[in-house]
């Protein structure tokens, strides 16, 4: 349920294929992203530009990926709609996930960290 773009060196851009990240699909989302991390890809951009709604389970899945990456890499988000950003702010996810307007800005920022 995810699309992975690894054309930018060691940075993976991951986009959910569904327009909602909720309890319905968040477990599968987390499993697929964690599998990618465990394959050695620990610098992630999560592109949420096609996601219109995230519930608490979706947020939990993102936190789970963040914890899995730990100190091995980075995870940032981009493309948040107003409603998704509101959920991030309300639940303070904006304190642990740096947000960029789009994937190009997010990839550029991650490249600058090395």
């Amino acid at each position, binding site marked *: 349920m995810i699309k992975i773009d690894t054309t930018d060196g060691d940075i993976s851009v991951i986009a959910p294929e569904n327009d909602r990240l909720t*309890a319905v699909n968040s477990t599968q989302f987390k499993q697929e992203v964690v599998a990618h991390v465990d394959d050695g890809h620990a610098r992630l951009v999560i592109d949420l530009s096609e996601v219109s709604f995230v*519930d608490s389970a979706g947020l*939990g899945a993102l936190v*789970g990926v963040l*914890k899995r990456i730990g100190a091995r890499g980075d995870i940032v988000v981009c493309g948040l709609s107003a*409603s998704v950003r509101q959920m991030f702010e309300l639940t303070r996810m904006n304190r642990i996930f740096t947000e960029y307007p789009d994937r190009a800005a997010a990839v550029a920022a991650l490249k600058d960290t090395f």
Partner: protein
Amino acid sequence: MQASFDMSAALHHVDAMVQALRAQVEPALGVQQALAFEVAVSEALTNIVVHGYKGTVGGAGILIELSTDGQGAQLTVRDQGRPGPSDLYETGPDLDKIDILEESGRGLALIRHHADTVNYTPSSDGNLLVLTFAAASPDLPGDDTG
């Protein structure tokens, strides 16, 4: 407006039901309050299916009644799942007290935050959850969030 819906107690039915309900209330609540409605109802229906019907297969349907008027919207959910404690929606930390690195446990706090009133009556004969949402004031800014 009054409408009723029957939803099977399965997680994969929740998103479509939530979107259908939001579409019904958005004209009455406005976009911003409709988002609050969507968040709270999504969390509530997910909780009922995940916790109330845990371990059951092909259980009874969940009856959902929705009414709207010029003042706002009321959602009534009747289910036959496992009853929760009567203070289920009154206890637990608020959003700003939940560990930011917790992967679960935000659902009830989100419901309390977004619904104007929450009334829960558990019973072995069926559980009743009533959520109300006031319509957004036309004077309030920020009603254009999509």
